[in-house]
């Protein structure tokens, strides 16, 4: 084999992987952009469909949104401290029976679909009232994911720091209050915000609760299902829901970015 053919073989060897690499790069970029566009296109479509906002009574648009926010805040106010406590317990005392049971319970709750929780809420609404039932259902939807996110945030604090503090004689409460929660505060806040958006989105699951008032209690699927699929006015509550979720996710991402800085 002369020198020119050796060079050709070498160049082919080099070109092969590079071409494949370039092809994968371009192809995957196209699909990634398509996926992102598929995420944003409905948002733009909802914005466009909501252009008749001025023709709609503001009260009918804002009231469900405000009720949704109240429901989510109430659900989060109950769930968040419980989730923080349970996350700390699972990290601090992972071997105890209560913690093991809580982990199993969390896995079970995470597997229960939203529509089933909605059905449970609808059945219990006659006993405890629609608002309480809705808050409990939302809390149960948000709780497992929030707990796992908090655990992950706590685990990001190196175990060696906790071990060293314990070896120095620091109490358990001091370790968690002054080291773990302090070091992981951005991750904890981001996890809470991210799950608040999930909780807000989950208000769409409350469709089975028999509301006694004429207007729906929240930005729910009731509005989607009770009207025709082709109705454009439904786009307004959908847009509200999307914007709320987007704002919460953006806030969470900003917090995480700040932590990295």
């Amino acid at each position, binding site marked *: 084999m002369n020198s020119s053919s050796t060079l050709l073989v070498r160049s082919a060897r080099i070109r092969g*992987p590079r071409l494949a690499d370039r092809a*994968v*790069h371009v192809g*995957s970029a196209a699909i*990634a952009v398509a*996926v*992102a566009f*598929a*995420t*944003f296109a*409905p948002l733009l*479509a*909802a914005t466009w469909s909501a252009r008749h906002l001025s023709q709609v009574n503001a009260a009918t648009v804002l009231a469900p949104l405000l009720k949704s926010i109240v429901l989510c805040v109430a659900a989060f106010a109950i769930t968040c401290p419980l989730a923080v*406590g*349970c996350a700390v*317990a699972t990290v601090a005392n992972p071997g*105890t029976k*209560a913690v093991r*049971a*809580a982990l*199993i*319970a*969390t896995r079970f709750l995470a*597997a229960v*679909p939203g*529509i*089933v*929780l909605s*059905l*449970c809420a*609808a*059945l219990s609404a006659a006993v405890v009232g629609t608002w309480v039932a809705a808050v409990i259902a939302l809390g149960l939807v948000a*709780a497992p994911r929030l707990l796992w996110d908090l655990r992950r945030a706590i*685990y990001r604090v*190196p175990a*060696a720091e906790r071990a*060293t503090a314990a070896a*120095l004689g*620091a*109490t358990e409460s*001091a370790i*968690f*209050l*002054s*080291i773990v929660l302090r070091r992981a505060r951005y991750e904890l806040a981001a996890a809470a915000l*991210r799950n608040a958006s999930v909780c807000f989105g*989950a208000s*769409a*699951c409350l*469709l089975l609760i028999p509301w006694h008032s004429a207007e729906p209690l929240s930005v729910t699927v*009731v509005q*989607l299902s009770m009207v025709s*699929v*082709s109705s454009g006015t439904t786009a307004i509550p959908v847009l509200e*829901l999307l914007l709320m979720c987007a704002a919460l*996710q*953006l806030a*969470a*991402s900003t917090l995480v*970015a700040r932590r990295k800085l």
Partner: protein
Amino acid sequence: MRERHVNVTSTLYALCPPRHLRLAGTPHPTVVFVLNAMLSSTQTTPSLLRDGRGNSRDNWLRRLTHASAICFTAAAALVATWLLIGGISAVTHENGRRLVGAAMRGIAIAGAATAIAFPLSIVAATYMAIYASSPVRKALVLSIDIGASVPGVIWAWLVLYELQALQLLELPHAHPTKVAIGMVSVTLIANCTRRVYSALRDIPPHLLENAIALGASRWDALRIVGFRSSAGWLGRAALRCLTRGTAESITLMLLAHVYTGAAPTLSAYIASSGLLLHQPNRLRELMPSALLLTLICYALRRLERDPRHAEHRETP
């Protein structure tokens, strides 16, 4: 005096850390940093040691955290008991064949939707994790995060609405199964991409860097090293998509007005029947469907568990 004792101990620890810390790969600077942080900036630990409040705080913390854990357990036990009692007592009112048929349809539709959404997710996540520059990656991750946080039924409604508005879909004439698979795929894709992206980001960077340094292209490094090292996580992500797809087949209730005679999936059946009933006594008739749906989702989630990986990496 106590502070002096702690300082001496901290110096000793900084100079010669215990064996378990060395085995854990903890470098000396970390230990020094922690000791400095504890002793100079926060001052919480020495003060707690000094005034003896630590024990009572510890007890309170333990009680509170255990109470939280018990609350979680009680909530799950309540839901499980309710489902079991309600489902078993109402099963006589339910047509068993219809339930099983709806369950099978739900899994089949979710499986087909996963088969469409998952490969697309792998490709998109590969670009985001390996090829994309930092600003592009941040923008894509944000859009995927937003998509994953919105319930699938909202996306499905928007897609249906837009396709009809653009006259690309004529609902009464379109095949119901194809429309169903398309709707569930749309609801899955953002969530799938997020999970696969997380799995790919967890690949140790030095593995890919070594492969590239040995002459492999980035695609080869990813194919040979990356995908193999995260195969378990990718499998889990696929199963998670299937589980979510089974639960998200609630989106098909949006088609209940159009295909009145079509047999729905379990969750769509609960949603559409519940909306029509809206009577607590008759809602109980849906409990067997809810129980069956929960059992299917729980069984699928149990399949996902991989004991080889650290527990804290799990996410519900």
